[in-house]
């Protein structure tokens, strides 16, 4: 397994990723542009629903032409793909708007290109997800390891009960509860909707994100603590742990160097998936704390029938998941020498 094989593997996986994204876009596109046709709507009706309030006949006609709604759905999809790969020109009256590649189209509501909106919203989601991920990874794994080592102890039982609570309580409950206590009552942290980008005011950015981080991390930390505990317990029963002890290694070395490393690999897989999903928008958390991230954008777009934006967010989320999955698999091979990429 030389570097060439690793490269070949990554290329093959990237090709697979592109196919996967194609499929995602096809399905999403189909749901929004093909299903209405199946349901018997005329192209005029469809176009009308995209124009907004009080559609005029000209506006409908213009929209129809602009979106190629009179063409077969397959062609429409082709235009969409072409936009992503090569960019697209949109006729708006006498002017021609060029939307450079990767072009995800124009928002129906704001008439702005979709991509800049996504880029505008991404930092908030990224801040939220990355901070929470760090928090839950560290705390979840630590609690899980301690629980496994003191199996059956008070600490173990307490941790697992709390973990059960964390897994079962929904974000909007824990989120609102924490807001009520720490923001409105104790006034330690600012309330919802106070998010400022890091570039504007780092301190405020941090303060405003503490509660969302903790709330989101609580849910995941609980899950990771249970996962780590189970993984640790399994690893501690492995023959090579017995060997490590038989060599006379101090217990601390046995745990950190031999047991922990093996039990972390399955966690890595889950972590990649979870983070990927969150990067596409932590919908509940963003809504609860009014953080202007991708999740909020998606909700707003769905509510307003802003299809290009919905499609854009979906594609972006899928891209995150697929890419992180690839990263995880490559990391996996780096950690476990038995895993061969191929």
């Amino acid at each position, binding site marked *: 397994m030389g570097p060439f*094989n690793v490269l*070949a593997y990554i*290329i*093959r996986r990237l090709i697979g990723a592109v196919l996967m994204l194609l499929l995602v876009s096809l399905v999403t596109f189909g749901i929004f542009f093909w299903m209405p046709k199946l349901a018997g709507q005329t192209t005029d009706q469809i176009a009308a629903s995209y124009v907004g309030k009080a559609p005029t006949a000209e506006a409908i006609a213009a929209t129809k032409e602009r979106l190629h709604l009179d063409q077969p759905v397959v062609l429409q999809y082709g235009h969409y793909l072409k936009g992503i790969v090569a960019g697209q020109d949109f006729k708006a009256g006498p002017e021609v708007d060029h939307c450079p590649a990767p072009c995800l189209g124009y928002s129906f509501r704001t008439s702005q290109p979709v991509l800049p909106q996504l880029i505008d919203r991404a930092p908030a989601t990224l801040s939220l997800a990355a901070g929470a991920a760090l928090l839950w990874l560290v705390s979840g794994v630590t609690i899980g390891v301690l629980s496994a080592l003191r199996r059956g102890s008070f600490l173990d039982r307490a941790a697992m009960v709390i973990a059960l609570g964390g897994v079962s309580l929904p974000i909007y409950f824990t989120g609102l509860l924490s807001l009520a206590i720490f923001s409105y009552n104790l006034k330690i942290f600012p309330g919802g909707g106070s998010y400022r980008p890091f570039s504007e005011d780092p301190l405020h950015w941090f303060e405003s994100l503490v509660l969302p981080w903790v709330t989101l991390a609580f849910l995941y930390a609980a899950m990771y603590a249970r996962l780590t505990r189970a993984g640790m317990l399994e690893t501690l029963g492995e023959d090579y742990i017995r060997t490590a002890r038989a060599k006379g290694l101090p217990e601390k070395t046995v745990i950190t160097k031999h047991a922990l490393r093996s039990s972390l690999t399955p966690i890595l897989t889950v972590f990649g998936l979870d983070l990927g999903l969150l990067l596409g928008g932590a919908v509940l958390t963003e809504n609860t704390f009014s953080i202007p991230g991708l999740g909020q954008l998606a909700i707003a777009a769905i509510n307003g029938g802003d299809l290009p934006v919905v499609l854009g967010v979906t594609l972006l989320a899928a891209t995150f998941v697929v890419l992180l999955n690839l990263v995880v698999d490559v990391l996996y091979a780096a950690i476990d020498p038995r895993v061969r990429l*191929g």
Partner: protein
Amino acid sequence: MSGDTTVSTSKTIQDAAKPAPEPAPEPRPQGEVMLEVDNLGKHFPVTAGLLRRQVGAVKAVDGVSFSVRKGETLGLVGESGCGKSTTGRMIMRLLDPSFGRITFEGRDITKLSRGQMRPLRRDLQMIFQDPYSSLNPRQTVGAIVGAPFRLQNIRTEHGVKRAVQDLLELVGLNPEHYNRYPHEFSGGQRQRIGIARTLALKPKLIVADEPVSALDVSVQAQVVNLMEDLQDELDLTYVVIAHDLSVVRHISDRVAVMYLGKIVEVADRAELYERPMHPYTNALLSAVPVPDPSLREGRERIRLQGDVPSPLDPPPACRFHTRCWKAQEICKTVEPPLVRLSPGHEVACHFPENATVSETDTVAKAAVAHGASPDEAPLADQD
């Protein structure tokens, strides 16, 4: 199989390097051929690169031929990776052969579909190694042993329960344990349950893959005896796959030794163990630890160097030449054919051990017939 060689039987026995002391060789079962395997092979493809092209193949089984007569037991021995289990699974059609032919009772079953195999499953059954994982823990013994009746839609005279209880009794279990679960039994008893299930449909041929290797010594003997009793009682034919040469010797009528996907020697049991001809067979027998400390010293030991080569890239010609102390140039260039040297004794080796002059001659002629130059083939330099 080269049937064109003629060897005088009486001469062979007289010239045998080690006289065979086994008392009055029991008459070999001369029944009709039940199973015939002809040039059977299984290659597992190995892929690599961007387009996952096939870059090679694990030649797990690479052209084996043998036949099993009705009522006899054929032992398949060899070390891990020699392809013995793969062969067994192909006979059962649990794996599809890459090439070759399997004939069961005169019928070619190599290409039969699952549906076409179904009625044949009555006749062909398998005993597995692990009595712990091959029984469904959530089913009672009654359900496990009775499953074949239901699957094959067979009406039993006094109902399935009675039939199952008869089977349990047959394999030495208490029929009243009909409603118990596998975990309530010990390893040996579980293997008995497995055997009872196998026997439910009165099979003709049973392939047993390491039937006793997971069991304790004292229990192993019980299961071996049980298998022998059942063979007499029910007229069964066995193919026993095992790595333990002592067990194979005890249970088999004929033994085939496999190395890296090939059969290197087949012989009647007494012949094989008293006059092993292939160097590999000799090495295997010599490596078995003998439970007699007085034989510790002075016993001639053949110690093979290194490990079995990878079946992904087996050595050319004779696959054993990399570890063989008798190997010469010809072993690296001409593959030794499996030659019948005496009745019921076939060997694939250019320089067999314990061979008579005429046998060595036969080997040399066969080598020439397979493309060796007469100088290479050791026609002359025999003593």
